[in-house]
């Protein structure tokens, strides 16, 4: 890793990763709706067309199945496609292609599908039910698919480079609320953040908050407040949901004995269940309290600001749960 770098916004880090990897590896290309001329609905792919041309930066029809399908085909033939969903919600329209074709191909046929599907996920920008979802729970459940969820600009770049170089399909969920709100140091050179490794964002003794994506920042905020109340929370940013870094997770809970999972995806059948179940199986002896889940409720993401605010986990909901857990 080079010592050079700069503080970059999350969105800039993603863009830098795309530029650098397309420069480095001519098998890498990008396809999606409005990724070329327009540079993507969130300008993530801005500048790619000018640098790499129409053959490697492909504006597609409004056809998510074709986008994911074509990415699968190209990957099977040795390319490294990156398929953008204009909003990750639209990946529902290619659910079959991603979960049944891409994810199962190596097992069925021996041929891996090294593609990346990426796109903006998450709420907080008044996007309403179809521009705000956090669908990680669905895709974690698809055998054969890896799922990564960066929370910082550093990880956004490093995980994207790792995802592109992975030999298996990776779903890369970028949080649209973070695009221009999170800024941190990003080395200008080449580096990867390994898929499957969590990061302990804050060490603590009293309880563990397991989270990822935009919620990492809520967790850290809450941990600061809790500190002042005498509760020392550890914050584990999973960074990858599949494969899960059980080692870091279990080590943290072994230390704190109490755990809360915090996520923006909805509750029932969501990722919190997997994490809680993993702990209930493998960390049972360490646990000194119930495993709590602080999540979005089982509703669509509502549109109006007060509704969306009620929908999203926030510092107050995290604090309320953490206090109860700490005093359990």
């Amino acid at each position: 890793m080079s010592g050079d770098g700069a503080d970059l916004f999350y969105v800039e880090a993603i863009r830098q990763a795309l530029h650098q990897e397309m420069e480095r590896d001519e098998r890498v290309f990008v396809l999606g709706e409005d990724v070329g001329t327009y540079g993507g609905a969130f300008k993530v792919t801005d500048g790619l067309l000018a640098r790499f041309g129409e053959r490697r930066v492909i504006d597609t029809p409004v056809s998510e199945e074709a986008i994911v399908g074509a990415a699968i085909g190209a990957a099977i033939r040795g390319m490294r496609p990156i398929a953008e969903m204009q909003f990750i919600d639209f990946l529902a329209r290619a659910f079959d292609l991603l979960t049944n074709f891409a994810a199962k191909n190596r097992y069925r046929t021996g041929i891996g599908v090294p593609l990346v599907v990426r796109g903006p996920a998450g709420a907080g920008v008044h996007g309403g039910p179809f521009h705000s979802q956090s669908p990680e729970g669905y895709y974690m459940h698809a055998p054969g698919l890896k799922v990564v969820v960066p929370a910082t600009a550093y990880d956004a770049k490093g995980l994207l480079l790792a995802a592109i170089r992975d030999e298996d399909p990776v779903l890369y969920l970028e949080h649209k609320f973070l695009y221009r709100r999170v800024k941190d140091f990003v080395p200008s050179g080449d580096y990867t953040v390994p898929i499957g490794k969590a990061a302990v964002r804050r060490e603590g003794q009293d309880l563990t908050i397991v989270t990822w994506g935009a919620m990492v920042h809520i967790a850290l905020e809450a941990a600061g407040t809790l500190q002042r109340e005498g509760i020392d929370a550890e914050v584990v940013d999973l960074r990858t949901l599949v494969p899960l870094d059980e080692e870091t997770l279990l080590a943290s809970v072994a230390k704190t004995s109490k755990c809360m999972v915090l996520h923006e995806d909805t509750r029932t059948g969501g990722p919190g269940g997997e994490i809680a179940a993993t702990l209930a199986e493998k960390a049972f002896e360490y646990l000194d309290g119930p495993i709590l889940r602080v999540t979005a409720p089982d509703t669509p993401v509502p549109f109006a600001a007060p509704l969306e605010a009620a929908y999203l986990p926030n510092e107050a909901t995290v604090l309320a749960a953490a206090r109860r857990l700490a005093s359990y």
Partner: protein
Amino acid sequence: MQTIPPDTEKEIYRLMVRTRLLEERLSNLYRQGKLSGGLYRSLGQEGCAVASAMALGEGDLLSPLIRNLGSVLARGVPPRDIFAQYLARVTSPSHGKEGVLHFSRPELGIYAPTTMLGTMIPVLAGMVLGDRMRGLKTVGMTYIGDGGSSTGAFHEGINFAAVQKLPVVLVLEHNGWAYSTPGEKQCLAKRMADKAPGYGIPGITVDGNDVAEVYGAVREAVDLARAGGGPTLVECRTYRMKGHAEHDAQAYVDRSELETWREKDPILRLERSFDARGTFPRADRERVVLEEEALLDAELSVVQAAPPPSADSAFRGVFLDEGIGERMRHETFTGGLP
């Protein structure tokens, strides 16, 4: 093609004006940062929306896309509903849970699509299928863009409607763009109506900015549908005069193309036609504009006075059984602790 009755023509004029003026107000509100979410204009396409919707009969069903403000106004949705949706007020038809034109007004035959383009086509087919089983002669109309026609749902939906001979009218608004993507990157067909024979249904291409043409063609399609003749694909050639949404400065658009289309503006053209025929004098039209301005101002102030929805309602309405939601709300605030 059916000709347009004189009163209908005047009503179309009024509704186009209403649409444009309403959007101008929304645009101002957007620039003031008062809207919740984005704004998707139909500038230059009002004729296609209004005239097609006017060709429906009573009790018929319509589902709009984001740019079909004119269509829902034509079906009787009051401007206050639109303001309330964009301003996310509790008085909005969706009670603030949804934005833009995503609301249902079943008593007016208006049904919300989802954002996912194309999906309303099979759903609308199902609506009129259901109505047919109930012995109703309902016709259903919805819209699709040159972009949305690339979706699988378009294909499955229109094909299903065709084999079932369902009374569906599909208006394809060919406005040259899908966000920043031009027509030729979307589909190579010479005309989008060329898709119709592949489904064994009639397809017609009309000038989407000529309200008489649109009305005539759609009216014929509605009549055919109601008579049991199945769906028709009506391609309306028009042009999206603004960016995809207000945040999009449409830098990718050739300015001269915009100039050409400005001359083909549907309101302007109808005015010229009125003048040529001497049927609806300028003074009367100006009165319409004033009336519409007054209506919109009144409706907007009512909406602005209304409160936003209360946080609690975020947890309600998922299932008919609110008990499920109650538990959910409780858990959200306790992290699941009993």
